[in-house]
């Protein structure tokens, strides 16, 4: 899953970037409102973590601009502005959730998962299909009751497919969710991870639609 982190504070941004990457999210980090606009125009993100007090262009105006363009990407506001009116204004301007600084990392991650799940149209946290059960919150995967461990990259490929069962994602789309700007991409990386996933989870979970991409069947 590819996230955009909009955060002007150097220390927070730096640490959050590492922590989110450790969770296998592909994260791009920008430090002001104008850069945020640019990133949002150039790239399809699964979620935006948006600080409000930004240089050059306020977070609220970034959010309004995003919603004015009819973009539905989930937006999680992370800010120090704690007044109730500000929270209401943020949510009414199109944000999907609001966390107050200083927040707990686990809570932030849970909110990110919830928003991603909701964005994929699912309410139940665990995906199940023909004996394969996947829990994105705990990263627990089991096949016929046998627990299976996935590597970080494998997980990163599986998660976006699981997010919208039935939807076909192209190799390029999967790559985008796998790598942020800084990462080097090897040409056949996605195929390698898909191959590994099929070996672990059985051939039926991830289906190849030839010439189009990959998908996970609906539950």
């Amino acid at each position, binding site marked *: 899953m590819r996230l955009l982190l909009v955060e002007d504070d150097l220390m*927070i941004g730096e640490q959050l970037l590492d922590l989110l990457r*450790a969770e296998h999210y592909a994260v791009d980090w920008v430090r002001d409102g104008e850069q945020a606009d640019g990133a949002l125009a150039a790239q399809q993100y699964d979620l935006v973590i948006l600080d409000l007090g930004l240089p050059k262009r306020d977070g609220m105006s970034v959010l309004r601009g995003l919603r004015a363009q009819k973009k539905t990407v989930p937006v999680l506001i992370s800010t120090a502005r704690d007044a109730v009116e500000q929270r209401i204004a943020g949510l009414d301007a199109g944000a999907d959730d609001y966390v107050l*600084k200083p927040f707990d990392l686990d809570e932030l991650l849970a909110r990110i998962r919830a928003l991603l799940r909701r964005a994929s149209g699912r309410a139940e946290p665990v995906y199940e299909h023909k004996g394969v059960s996947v829990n994105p919150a705990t990263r627990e995967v089991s096949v016929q009751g046998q627990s299976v461990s996935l590597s970080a990259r494998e997980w990163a490929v599986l998660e976006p497919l699981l997010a919208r069962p039935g939807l076909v994602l192209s190799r390029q789309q999967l790559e985008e969710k796998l790598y942020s700007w800084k990462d080097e991409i090897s040409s056949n990386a996605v195929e390698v991870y898909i191959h590994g996933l099929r070996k672990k989870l059985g051939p039926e979970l991830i289906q190849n639609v030839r010439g189009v991409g990959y998908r996970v069947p609906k539950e």
Partner: protein
Amino acid sequence: MSASLERSALADWWRRSMPLSLRYRLIIFLIAAVSVAALIQGLIAYRNALHETDEIFDYHMRQMAFSMQGRFGSGTVSVPLGGDKQPFDFLVQAWALDGSPLLESPLGGLLPQRAVLGFSNVDSYGRQYRVFSLQTSYQVIQVAQDMAVRRRMAGELAWRTVLPIALMLPLLGVVVWWVVSHSLEPVSRVREQIANRAADDLAPLVAADMPSELGPLVAEFNALLHRVAGAFEAQQHFVADAAHELRSPLTALKLQLQGLQRATDAQEQAQAAARLAKGIDRASHLVDQLLALARQEGRSLAVLGAHDVALDALCRDAVVAVADAAGAKGIDLGLGRCDAAQVRGQSESLAMLIRNLLDNAIKYTPAGGHVDLSLRSEGSRTVVLCVEDSGPGIASAERERVFDRFYRSPETTALAGAQGSGLGLAIVRAIADSHGATITLDRSPTLGGLWVRIVFPVQA
């Protein structure tokens, strides 16, 4: 000296013995004044009445005497001019020229047989009589009157003058009470307004319908309230800003701690610990700066305590203090011209001012750049402290805003390796303000970066 002492002793006594209430004071004074006036009026009325009764009764006595000029027969006639029970005012006696009595009032014997012609006052048996004696061709006639009668009548007249005032006195008291109470009503209104307000209610008092004695007091009080409200608001903003600003370092600390907890190998742990240490440094620096600003802002030198401070020594100390930081970044830090200069002020504050300017310059100047500090006396009235650097400078549009607390320039924030507290220049401004110094920011003509000029006044 002794006169003034006496006067102050008198004033003291006066202050102690007077009731504190204006109302009681006014009532006591007004009633006393009215009473004294009534008394004086009564006395004058009594004197005038006495004088007039004298004239009237003298005239009557004379007329009475003249009316008896005719010749009486010989022999004594006792005229029953009233009995004991109804004492008559006048006594009449007549003597023949040979001294034999002709006419005698019942109490005539009280009068001496002596006749001073015309008016005379005679004391007899403890009473004072007014006597008129007239000698005619046949007899001597004496008409007398007890002076007590005259006094009684004068007294009655005077009493009649004073009585209405005396009767009116309670009414007057009530009227005075009412007028005074009514006049002082605005005072109690103001008192109630102040008594009934909440501790944090600094809205001005209602000044409408205030008498001219009270109006200025209320206006002054409102002006004070306004100043207090301003300071209060500034304080609240400061606290709100500070609380808000503390959230960022706290968020960073929390994330850095969680980073440390999640670190899996020694290298990650070391990196996470280093970040956490930096985060703690940043948070404590912010707290230090907040405290420094809170101490400086809005304080006058009178409160902080001013001394003669040698700025040149402070400049040398500051350069030494930041030399390591500059060296670490490969910045050429130097003290240029440094005139011996003394300003009136607070040594620690001024040291902090110089230190903050140098810290800023080093922070925002790229590695390998230059930072210059100089101090020069210009004339005998001013000392100019300059800090120049070869950094990016501050755009002219931003030069006012950089002094706002927690303002960070978006351009320079991106450049600096670590974020500042956004308070450095706010503290510099607060210190400069309290020392009566002016700050100007410009582009350095020699180094191309920021040029901070602080002009201190020098008291002759």
